[in-house]
């Protein structure tokens, strides 16, 4: 295991941020840490690289106890913080130079590595402009570039794609896949479930500081909800009328006026809705159940079974 947490707890005052959390991140995969705001993701990551000390439990990274070997562990990992930490008055190149020196990189290796990460994250076009003049997406890519300076074996990304446009996000995913293919273990948090589903080999869903579910996204989906989802707009009264006496064990998620049904085969339900609607052509979305459904099922409060 690259990262191993055993019954790790951390409280701030009387607020328990991480609650007896255990986690195993195997080598060479992309592992997603998912959870609602305040679930304890960032706190968990900080404990992994040793700047937050757990109140109890044990943490090993690369097989080393992080509390005893913080320098040795951090030399081998890279962290992109949730909020960019960049020196705005300096250029991307100068930022990379300053950061590379934190890892004690020396010339000519330092300049060579700066060139490599600039190429890898396509920062070349603005490498010599002050950071404060760059777009948010460019700044985010630079923040990620910083965490690659030391060729990390473990890359920790705290919400790397928040605020990025779709094209940049896709490009970033492919970079992360390249790193993984080259042997880097990636530990990423995100609020985008489509991202987690497409990018991560395994995910852990964290709720109030505890792992409530862990595994490959496809397995999690299969374990919790039927594979087909039907989404439509209807009030609770309309819903009762549409389903009239049918499907007592049908799983559904309602958020306001939007309701999603999960079933093994969507066709009979669609037929029934069309029948009940008597010619009125209500817009329906039929799609495969995805990780977002599971996330909401596990973390949300509005999922009920049956009528």
């Amino acid at each position, binding site marked *: 295991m690259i990262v191993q947490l055993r019954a790790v707890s951390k409280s*701030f005052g009387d607020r328990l941020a991480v609650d007896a959390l255990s986690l195993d991140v195997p080598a060479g995969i992309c592992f997603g840490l998912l959870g609602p705001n305040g679930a304890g993701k960032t706190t968990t990551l900080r404990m992994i*690289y040793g*700047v*937050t*000390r757990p109140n109890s439990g044990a943490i090993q990274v690369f097989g080393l106890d992080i509390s005893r070997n*913080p*320098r*040795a562990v*951090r*030399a081998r*990992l*890279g*962290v992109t*913080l949730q*909020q960019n*930490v960049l*020196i705005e*008055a*300096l250029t991307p190149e*100068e930022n990379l*130079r*300053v*950061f590379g*020196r*934190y*890892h*004690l990189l020396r010339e000519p290796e330092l300049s060579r590595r700066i060139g490599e990460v600039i190429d890898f994250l396509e920062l070349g076009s603005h490498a010599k402009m002050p950071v404060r003049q760059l777009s948010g997406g460019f700044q985010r890519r630079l923040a990620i570039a*910083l*965490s690659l300076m*030391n060729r990390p074996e473990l890359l920790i990304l705290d919400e790397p794609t928040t605020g990025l446009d779709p094209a940049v996000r896709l490009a970033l995913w492919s970079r992360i896949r390249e790193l993984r293919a080259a042997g880097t273990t990636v530990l990423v948090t995100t609020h985008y479930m489509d991202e987690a589903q497409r990018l991560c080999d395994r995910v852990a869903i964290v709720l109030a500081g505890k792992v409530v579910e862990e595994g490959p996204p496809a397995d999690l989906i299969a374990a919790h909800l039927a594979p087909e989802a039907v989404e439509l707009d209807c009030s609770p009264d309309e819903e009762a009328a549409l389903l009239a006496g049918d499907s007592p064990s049908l799983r559904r998620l309602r958020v306001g006026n939007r309701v999603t049904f999960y079933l093994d085969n969507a066709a009979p339900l669609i037929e029934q809705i069309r029948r009940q609607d008597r010619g009125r052509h209500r817009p329906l979305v039929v799609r495969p159940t995805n990780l977002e459904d599971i996330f909401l099922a596990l973390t949300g409060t509005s999922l009920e079974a049956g009528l």
Partner: protein
Amino acid sequence: MSLSVPHALAVWRRNASMYSRTWKWNILPNFFEPVLYLVSIGIGLGGYINQMGGTTYLVFLAPGLVCVAAMNGASFEVTYNIYVRLVFEKAYDAMLTTPIEPDDVLAGEVLWAITRASIYGGCFFAVVAVAGLAPLPSALWVLPLIPLAGLLFAAIGIAFSLRIPNIDLFSFYFTLFLTPLFLFSDVFFPLKERLPAQWLWLGEALPLLHPVRLARAAFRGEASLILLWDVFYILVVSILLLAWARSGVRRRLTN
């Protein structure tokens, strides 16, 4: 003890990289200030003073002001500038994702504060020397003294900075601590000639008094035993405060 000198130097390099971007504009005021002081107080006020401490007032004044420049240079760095790096720039959050440890941050910042003190104090000394107020070569002893004064005020300032919850309180440090030191530490008049004998110990407690006494001795080319006490005071107070600051820095940067 977990200080790594190369990592401390990397912290220092960060600050140096930012400073070197704007050094031309940063360094210029350091030359105006001594000229203004020497003309206004040294020549203007000094015109009414026949002699002080056995010399002209201008000659009396110059070494103390060099120390004040070093004090101010270090103090700004370890108060406002460290606070900006900690709270607004979050520079230390980034450093602590690398092998840098809190002790390295402390050492790097102290070293940088000493550097700034040396730039301030050095510029002041250059002006004083050009004005013919620094008898050479003995006055050159001030050169090692300037970083020593920087060390002392870096240590005091960091100890204070670690204790305060918000940036507004720094103005108390400047108006209630540094300004009185500036006014009462032998810079403008010999404190021991104006202070009743039973209060002399209080004068000895003032941190700025010691670098000023050393600087004046250097300018006069006179060594005496009390200078050993001055050096001892600066080193011991600095070391004690920095040792005490270590746990505070760790507490501020990690949790």
